[in-house]
């Protein structure tokens, strides 16, 4: 292990200077010659047949270069592949039917965006409106309007899975808790919307697409197939800066196809910058979910089994990487508890809402909201302290690495220690005393707890759990697995270091993180390292799992950098051995030079060695390749494809989160005020605490946004009611609670640096902890929060109802 001068330190970010001075380069800032601009006509109906489109007036409008409609899309492209069997045809634009309000119906390419929007108004579309369905349970009913006639049902996928012996556990249980939960449809709405530019070169047949796309790059293959292009004729370039994503910019890919098609058809370079209305209507979000859960336990609080049946609402089309919403957390379905038996019925249903995709915490916000609420309900039923119920069921430090019944392999951790730290930091006992006093005064004061296992670095294989094991077992089925990242490090003739990677950071500071890792590996200064992270599928090394999602960078990216650095150091040692005639084993790379392990001379500096390799290539000894660069592709051996019993290690590293929150509910307005919020994380080795805490803070506010403020609401006809930031309520600085963060470090044994991901972090616990705290505050009234967001209006009605019940 190299000496760590930078890893673990709050190094100020390399990324900041251009961003603070207006010199960032986002998709809308990229310069192009002869650029034209696109605008998109969108469906006004949630469900309708398109009887005809007449774009002739638009084609003749001032400045218009061309118009693309669904007919072109149906003729020239193929539907996108998706990981379920339902024969759903999802094209990059509506081709005959529209299935959600805001679905693209036509694209105008014009000299500027103003003119393009003018021309949209000249396109005549004749629709035959059809009945819409919005509610997932209603959509799953046999008499519901069917969105996709080919599928014959709105249920895109349904899997029933059993682990252990849940039936017996429920029979033997002293107590069973049952509840229904509703999780809202919300989105992280990055402040930079989607943006795509495209240019086609007929000579080479290469289509280049620039987009603020975050991966995974498996979607490159889907795009190429959809556009009938060979993969090496489709070049994707990600601009240097992306203005936030949090999962949402995975789902930009249909627009990449659409703009690619527009460029090929019109022959011009064209850019489309999504506007906010388009984003809120038609970009992406997490799923809304209805879940029915049961929890079996002994009267001492020991959890025995969980039973869950849920429906995830993926909107008008099931779009890759859905149904990840249902299965992404499969390996951590039991959370941090020693439960061995589960009964799962996971359904994924299509309705006339905007399609969904990854949103920070992908599938985990839903999971922990349900589990952690159930644990509190159990504690209440047993008359136990909710902290005590949790204590009795936590996986113990001696049990790591811990194999969960669903196939997850929790790599490391000390859950009890982290939990106790959270309780102590928040002064849990003191909060409970305060609560007694507050209740005596008639105040609604509550304390909530939430625990979570925080999965990072998704194993691409988990998605195939959506298929029945029988299908996965058929001959010819290609199993899917893995999570890799490739990084190249180069040393130039004067000894300075360049790191090249294909990640797509959206504010996570990848350049800073890698500069820290590589500077430490080589024992040089941060300034000696330059990191380039502008993804380009023609020049970067990448694979299907590439991209910046599932909190993977600190784990898989930093590991690849460390391994590449070590390869390069080994080469330098080898060359120094040749030059000094000292055996390799007697040399080491330390403090920026190669020197004898025993100390003393000769010591060869990086600069000196690099100079010799570059300037006198012919003098290199046999067995040493010329050049000074190394590439490492880092992957995890435990990222296997699912087995026949539906067990899969769905992520590669697993952190832990323990949170405590105190709230007070205003009995008159039902407003929730957060008084105290403590969040303890164990994400292994922290490379940069400044960046790590930033991720936690941002994630927490995303989770609280979904729990208290944000929801994409539709009326019964499928009209979306919050297509502006006036109505879609993103929390502001005035609403952000103080958050006290603490870290424990149980390094991952599976990564060279011991780091785990924490990019999603508290986004998955915040809904649970606030729901528990508010329920606790309202316990005297007998109110359990089972539906989010907890809006003041909704909460006031719950309180009123309870007061009627218990005068």
């Amino acid at each position, binding site marked *: 292990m190299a000496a760590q001068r930078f890893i673990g330190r709050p190094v100020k970010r390399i990324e900041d200077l251009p961003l603070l001075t207006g010199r960032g380069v986002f998709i809308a800032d990229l310069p192009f010659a002869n650029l034209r601009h696109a605008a998109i006509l969108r469906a006004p109906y949630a469900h309708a047949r398109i009887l005809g489109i007449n774009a002739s007036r638009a084609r003749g409008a001032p400045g218009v270069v061309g118009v693309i409609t669904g007919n072109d899309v149906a003729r020239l492209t193929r539907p996108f592949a998706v990981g379920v069997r339902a024969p759903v045809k999802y094209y990059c634009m509506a081709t005959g039917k529209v299935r959600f309000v805001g679905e693209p119906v036509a694209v105008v390419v014009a000299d500027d965006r103003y003119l393009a929007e003018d021309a949209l108004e000249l396109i005549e579309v004749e629709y035959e409106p059809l009945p819409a369905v919005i509610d997932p349970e209603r959509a799953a009913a046999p008499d519901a309007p069917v969105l996709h006639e080919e599928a014959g049902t709105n249920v895109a996928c349904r899997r029933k899975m059993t682990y252990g012996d849940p039936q017996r556990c429920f029979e033997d249980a002293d107590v069973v808790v049952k509840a229904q939960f509703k999780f809202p449809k919300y989105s992280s709405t990055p402040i930079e919307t989607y943006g795509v530019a495209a240019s086609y070169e007929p000579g080479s047949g290469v289509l280049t697409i620039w987009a603020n796309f975050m991966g995974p790059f498996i979607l490159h293959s889907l795009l190429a197939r959809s556009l009938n292009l060979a993969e090496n004729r489709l070049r994707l370039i990600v601009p240097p800066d992306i203005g936030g994503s949090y999962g949402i910019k995975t789902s930009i890919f249909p627009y990449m196809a659409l703009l690619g098609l527009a460029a090929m058809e019109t022959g011009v370079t064209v850019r489309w910058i999504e506007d906010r*209305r388009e984003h809120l209507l038609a970009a992406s979000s997490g799923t809304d979910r209805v879940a029915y859960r049961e929890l079996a336990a002994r009267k001492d609080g020991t959890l025995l089994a969980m039973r869950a049946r849920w429906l995830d609402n993926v909107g008008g089309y099931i779009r890759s990487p859905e149904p990840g919403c249902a299965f992404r957390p499969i390996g951590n379905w039991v959370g941090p508890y020693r439960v061995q038996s589960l009964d799962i019925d996971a359904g994924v249903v299509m309705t006339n809402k905007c399609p969904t995709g990854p949103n920070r915490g992908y599938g985990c916000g839903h999971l922990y909201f349900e589990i952690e609420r159930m644990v509190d309900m159990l504690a209440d039923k047993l008359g136990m302290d909710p902290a005590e119920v949790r204590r009795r069921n936590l996986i113990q430090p001696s049990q790591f690495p811990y194999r969960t019944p669903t196939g997850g392999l929790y790599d490391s951790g000390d859950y009890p220690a982290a939990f106790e730290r959270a309780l102590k930091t928040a002064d849990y006992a003191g909060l409970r005393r305060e609560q007694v006093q507050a209740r005596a005064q008639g105040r609604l004061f509550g304390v909530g707890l939430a625990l979570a296992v925080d999965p990072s670095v998704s194993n691409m294989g988990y998605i195939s759990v959506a298929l029945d094991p029988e299908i996965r077992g058929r001959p010819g089925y290609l199993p899917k697995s893995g999570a890799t990242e490739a990084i190249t490090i180069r040393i130039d003739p004067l000894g300075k270091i360049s790191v090249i990677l294909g990640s797509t950071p959206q504010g996570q500071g990848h350049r800073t993180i890698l500069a820290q890792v590589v500077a430490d590996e080589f024992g040089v200064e941060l300034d000696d390292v330059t990191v380039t992270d502008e993804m380009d599928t023609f020049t970067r090394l990448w694979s299907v799992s590439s991209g910046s999602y599932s909190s993977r960078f600190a784990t898989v990216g930093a590991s690849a950098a460390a391994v590449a650095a070590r390869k390069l150091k080994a080469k330098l040692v080898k060359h120094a051995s040749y030059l000094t005639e000292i055996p390799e084993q007697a040399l080491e790379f330390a403090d920026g030079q190669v020197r004898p392990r025993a100390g003393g001379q000769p010591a060869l500096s990086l600069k000196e060695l690099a100079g010799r390799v570059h300037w006198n290539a012919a003098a290199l000894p046999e067995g040493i390749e010329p050049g000074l660069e190394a590439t490492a592709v880092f992957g995890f051996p435990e990222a296997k494809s699912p087995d026949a019993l539906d067990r899969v290690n769905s992520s590669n590293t697993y952190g832990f989160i323990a949170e405590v929150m105190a709230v007070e509910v205003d009995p008159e307005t039902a*407003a929730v005020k957060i008084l105290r919020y403590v969040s303890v994380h164990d994400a292994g080795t922290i490379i940069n605490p400044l960046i790590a805490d930033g991720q936690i803070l941002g994630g927490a506010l995303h989770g609280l946004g979904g729990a208290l*403020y944000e929801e994409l609401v539709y009326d019964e006809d499928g009209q979306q009611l919050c297509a502006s930031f*006036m*109505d879609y309520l993103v*929390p502001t*600085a005035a609403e952000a609670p103080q958050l006290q963060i603490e870290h424990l470090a149980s390094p991952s044994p599976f990564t060279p640096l011991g780091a785990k991901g924490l990019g999603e972090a508290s986004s998955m616990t915040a809904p649970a902890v606030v729901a528990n705290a508010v329920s606790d505050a309202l316990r005297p009234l007998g109110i359990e929060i089972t539906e989010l967001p907890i809006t003041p*209006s909704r909460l006031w009605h719950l309180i009123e109802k309870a007061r009627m019940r218990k005068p």
Partner: protein
Amino acid sequence: MKPPAFEYHDPVELEPALELLRRYQGEAKILAGGQSLLALLNFRLTRPVALIDVNRIRRLSYIKEQDGRLCLGAVTRQRAVEFSPLVREKLPLLAEATRLVGHLPTRTRGTIGGSLAHADPAAEYPAVFSALDGELVARGPNGERVLGAREFFQGLMTTALAPDEVLVEVRLPLMTAQCGWAFEEFSRRQGDFAIVGVAAQVCVVGERCKTARLAAAGVGPTPLRLERAEQTLEQDGLSERSIAEAAARAAEQTEPPSDLHATAQYRRHLTRVLTQRAISRALARARGERR
């Protein structure tokens, strides 16, 4: 989200603006601060043939005291109202309400006249204007006329302004001695339009309520003057019981809408809570307590 094309005029005097309004026969819109109008244009929810920008008409921007009233030029920026020592001293309710209008960067451009003419029922200025029985001066082809709050707000975002009229001045009575004020608002986020807002100005003589001026925002198509609550205070005095009674009567008077953010019942309930809070806070101020 780009505005449709329009003709644009930015006269520096009022008369040419009036002439343009006449010429466009209802097809032109006045562009004041633009903080609502430009958003509507960007959404293409309105498409006037022409915009008549009054921002360069300097003489429509002033704050002065005249005949016991505060007179504000219609194009006075909300930011100017916020930081005006005169407003803070002579009509603190207006100053307090101003700080709840959007955010400072929108108050930089937004104007008091623009907000009143836009007549969003959840906005703060119309409620203050209604509570204080303000007057609006409109100038049209036949000269000026003065409109009171009751006649000005006619319905949801609809006012008594004729298509060929321009709002030129807003007049509000100055607060007299032994009065207190409060603007209580409940919104889900800082800076949002109110779910419900209540403007209150209460003047006392000893233990008696001399005048109570109350109006609510967000509970109907127009700002709602809470007369029944005012009467309760003026007749029954300022006991806690009377304040509670006044708040209850305020709530009874509302017929609020239900929407995405709040049900009608909740809005009615909030009217009671906020009226009670506003009266209490105004009263404390009237009695010289610092709150």
